[in-house]
């Protein structure tokens, strides 16, 4: 009885998925666009009332105060940058250069450059980081942490998502959940969605997907050393991979398998010799 009902529900849900897919258009049924389309025709919404006058005065005052990048300097407060216009350039105290898209925000503290170079950001910002092996450059977004020594990359971040594109050098990307450190090099892009706890790492001809909620991992043409490094982080376990097997390419998907099962599958598939150095916690 229960199984029949489950099957019926699944069929109905698949029907809904089919229905949505058949009519799906990117950007359609967008609430913000719909609101913009609706309000000009509504009496009272398009008019410039007292509120919009206040808004205009505030905007004019802001424009006078901030030209290009607005830098607010207040006692004991972090330095804050806000890009009023697209492609706003700025040079940080360590000579790292950034280019901010309109609306992007960045802040750094007064002790920036002492032991590490840490900034937090929101919006779209391109970075060309000055190399300093002693003081890593750390970018914090609402959903991820990005650590570099010296490289060029772009970050786009909002409350639910962080996107990273690496132009050169090496970047360590760590989403909030699952907190796995993902080394990324030139031409790689990372997209992390916090709501679904999904990380996608793509490079030409290769892809990794990690889902922290369903505990699933997908590897598409990934070198075994990267697979093993990711598994070590994901399962918090030390693994050993013979050096001569490090560059073998691996493709497969795992959902909720134990680390022992995964290693067995890899070893059987590729005839490799990955071993667990310490038992799982």
């Amino acid at each position, binding site marked *: 009885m229960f199984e029949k009902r489950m099957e019926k529900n699944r069929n109905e849900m698949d029907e809904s998925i089919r229905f949505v*897919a058949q009519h*799906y258009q990117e950007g359609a*049924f967008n609430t913000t666009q719909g609101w913009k389309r609706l309000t000009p025709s509504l009496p009272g919404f398009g008019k410039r009332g007292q509120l919009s006058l206040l808004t205009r005065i505030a905007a004019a005052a802001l424009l006078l105060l901030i030209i290009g990048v607005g830098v607010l300097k207040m006692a004991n407060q972090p330095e804050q940058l806000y890009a009023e216009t697209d492609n706003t350039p700025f040079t940080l105290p360590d000579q790292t250069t950034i280019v901010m898209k309109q609306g992007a925000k960045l802040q750094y503290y007064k002790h920036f450059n002492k032991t590490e170079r840490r900034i937090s950001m929101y919006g779209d910002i391109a970075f060309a980081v000055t190399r300093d092996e002693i003081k890593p450059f750390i970018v914090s977004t609402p959903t991820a942490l990005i650590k570099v020594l010296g490289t060029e990359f772009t970050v786009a971040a909002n409350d639910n998502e962080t996107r990273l594109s690496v132009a050169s050098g090496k970047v360590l990307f760590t989403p909030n959940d699952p907190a796995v450190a993902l080394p990324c090099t030139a031409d790689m892009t990372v997209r992390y969605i916090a709501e679904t706890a999904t990380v996608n790492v793509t490079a030409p001809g290769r892809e990794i997907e990690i889902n922290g909620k369903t505990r699933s991992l997908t590897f598409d043409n990934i070198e075994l050393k990267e697979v093993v490094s990711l598994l070590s982080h994901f399962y918090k376990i030390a693994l050993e991979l013979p050096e001569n097997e490090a560059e073998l390419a691996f493709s497969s998907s795992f959902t909720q398998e134990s680390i022992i099962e995964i290693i067995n599958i890899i070893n059987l598939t590729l005839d490799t010799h990955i071993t667990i150095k310490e038992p799982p916690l």
Partner: protein
Amino acid sequence: MFFVNECFRKKKFSGYFHDHYRQLCLHALHFMGNADEAEDVVQETFVNLWDKREQMETIKSMKSYLYTAVRNNCLTRIRDAKPTSSLEMIPPDALLPEEDQIKRAEMEVRIWKMIDELPERRRKIFLMAKRDGMSYREIAAETGLSVKTVENHIFRAMQSLRSKDINAYFFFFA
């Protein structure tokens, strides 16, 4: 006082719009079968609501009102387009209980959002199969991927759409 009331109404109206717009568009889509027309009907419904804004406080369940208004506006449009319309021309969806129509629209919004959030390549492949009706072999030829990889992308897309919604779905429909 008039100014205060008008500000208050604007705020409420904006809340109704932002809470229900996407769901209502999907609700209308079942009747109209076309995204542009569905959106037109929903826009028209909100214009009508604003015209009657002074009575807005008297509406007990705004959600129920909006779904019914959208449904009626859709049926009016269908009938106007074909004046000789008989009962057979009314979409079967119109006969579902209102509560089921609301729940279905809410679930479909979540599915729509999940498709938005699929990784770009996976979304493209998924839509090629499910929207454009292409076979796995055709998709493989178009994208340069193997049939197995295409199959894997579609399987995983379906899996994430189902896993995201399954709990909510059982809660509503079980």
